[in-house]
């Protein structure tokens, strides 16, 4: 039943939005030719649209409140853990994993090269997301300049190849190592900074790297970038474009599995515990004998290592790098992947990367509106599902399970 109050509210909302959008939606100006175009139709659309959306919004808000009520009554725990229980239930997750594995392996043969290329991009973002997840999700350090390390990786392959003819397989670890070194370089001065100060300094660092790449022509060839970067070779064979895309796809799969493996191990280790403790209380952490500086630097450099390797992959995939690929927006998108997917949750970050990279790609049909939709998605997700797509339920150390394992 829709109540009178709600209708009144919706009418007010719709009037407010008609007023709000009036100059920008209705009037279009062309100051060059002195033309002013009046689009009254838009006003009607905004009015009707906001009238209807007001109901949807109210309904969702009510459900959100109800949802949290249920959670408080202890029902939500069952709902959440259904998914996580599935993860722990061998009968369910093993077959799922097998099916998923077969699907991933056969992907390039089922779908077109175009699809494979998109998937490679998505996988690069999976890697970036998992790397940033170490910094933001585990250690709780807000890094807005993550793209800098991505750029370091990409340019190190491009430049090493250009000057010394280094091959992809040598450049990959070097890119990772250079990323780590830059991570430490950035980490040192910002160790004392907290929260948003850290965010802005890392942001600045990202911009500095980009601007230097753009302007230092002798070093980086400026805005025009470096072209003709070789794709990864396979035993000296020259692969066709199609073949090498498939090849890169498999390299990416292997790298992603490797990343997941490493991040997973790190999470459950002495260092992983220290990160989480550091996120919760720095002072108590130090009082417990944890070296704050070292622990933070480890997080920074590990995160940067993955960005560096992802950068090498990016250069190898596109065969061309220029500074325009490493803007602040890239950092923001990677951060969105981590938060939207579910901070600290590996599956969540993977899901986040796939959603955020693939959605805009497949929304190309509505290309004009896709960024608008993307922005809306971010806002709506954060309001109605703040934990992310797959919220992290941290595996805690269960003492009994350790004990039982001893006996068996």
């Amino acid at each position, binding site marked *: 039943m829709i109540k009178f109050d709600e209708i009144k509210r919706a009418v007010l909302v719709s009037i407010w939005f008609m007023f709000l959008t009036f100059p920008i939606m209705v009037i279009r100006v062309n100051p060059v030719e002195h033309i002013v175009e009046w689009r009254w139709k838009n006003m009607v659309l905004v009015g009707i649209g906001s009238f209807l959306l007001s109901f949807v919004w109210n309904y969702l808000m009510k459900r959100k409140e109800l949802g949290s*009520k249920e*959670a*408080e009554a*202890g029902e*939500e*725990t069952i709902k959440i853990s259904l998914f996580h229980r599935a993860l722990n239930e061998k009968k369910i997750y093993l077959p799922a994993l097998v099916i998923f594995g077969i699907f991933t392996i056969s992907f390039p043969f089922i779908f077109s090269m175009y699809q494979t290329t998109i998937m490679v991009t998505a996988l690069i973002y999976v890697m970036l997301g998992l790397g940033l997840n170490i910094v933001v999700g585990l250690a709780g350090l807000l890094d807005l300049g993550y793209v800098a390390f991505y750029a370091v990786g990409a340019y190190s392959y491009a430049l090493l190849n250009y000057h010394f003819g280094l091959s992809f397989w040598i450049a990959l670890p070097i890119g990772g190592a250079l990323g780590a070194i830059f991570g430490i370089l950035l980490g040192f001065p910002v160790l004392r900074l907290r929260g948003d100060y850290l965010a802005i300094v890392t942001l600045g660092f990202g911009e500095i790297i980009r601007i230097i790449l753009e302007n230092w022509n002798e070093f980086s060839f400026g805005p025009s970038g470096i072209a003709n970067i070789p794709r990864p070779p396979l035993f000296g064979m020259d692969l066709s474009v199609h073949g090498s895309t498939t090849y890169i796809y498999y390299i990416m799969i292997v790298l992603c599995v490797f990343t997941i493996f490493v991040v997973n191990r790190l999470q459950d280790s002495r260092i992983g515990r220290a990160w989480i403790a550091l996120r919760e209380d720095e002072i108590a952490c130090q009082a417990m004998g944890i070296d704050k500086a070292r622990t933070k630097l480890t997080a920074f450099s590990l995160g940067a290592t993955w960005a560096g390797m992802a950068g090498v992959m990016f250069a190898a995939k596109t065969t061309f790098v220029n500074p325009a690929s490493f803007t602040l927006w890239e950092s923001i998108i990677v951060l969105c992947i981590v938060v939207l997917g579910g901070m600290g949750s590996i599956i969540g970050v993977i899901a986040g990367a796939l959603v955020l990279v693939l959605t805009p790609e497949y929304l190309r049909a509505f290309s004009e509106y896709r960024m608008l939709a993307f922005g809306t998605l971010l806002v709506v997700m954060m309001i109605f599902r703040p934990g992310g797509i797959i919220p992290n339920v941290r595996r805690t150390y269960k003492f009994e399970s350790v004990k039982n394992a001893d006996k068996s």
Partner: protein
Amino acid sequence: MLKLKNVQTFYGNIQALKSVTIEIAEGEIVTLIGANGAGKTTTLMAVCGVVPPRSGEISFMGDPITGMEPDKIVSLGICQVPEGRRIFPYLSVAENLDMGAFLRNDKMEIKKDIEYVFDLFPILAERRHQAGGTLSGGEQQMLAISRALMAKPRLLLLDEPSLGLAPLIIKKIFEIIGKINAENNTTIFLVEQNANLALKVAARGYVIENGRITLTDSSKNLLANEEVKKAYLGL
């Protein structure tokens, strides 16, 4: 004057208050005692509307105030001195007092009341231009009480005024609490962990355990009660 009926509140997944019922008459000093985390502070925050109850009713002077915005509740004459004092650290003592009178417009009266609280706590007059954050714990407690008095409350809620203070200062603060009640007929609802002190100044008391009121009686009887003695008086 104040009535809580079957009030329940939640923080996230945890139920903080489980069906709390309390009644306070005008002019009384009533205390609520209990252990850390039993729900004392939550009860006060529920009355002030900061933690709105999920169910149950709260009424003040016969009118329901459940779910009202905190600022509306304050304007009715309910004022709280919260746990940990919560002085505005970068405002001066005078400005802090000014904030207490935020909802009032009677400049002359406000001036008089400032004189009154300076009379109660002369040390505050000395420090009127000092930033609130630089005061010592005891001075901050005095300032917090004064700030609440600046609102001319009909019902004053005090949350652990003795917390972290040296015994002599505690004694002084409790004397003043009695004085405020006697001089202005201000009703006082006192939450304390220091049951001994609280039951001496209050006429009646409630005991809260794990979000439930488990006992209510006159202070005299509570002081004599074996359970209370064992758990809260350390005898």
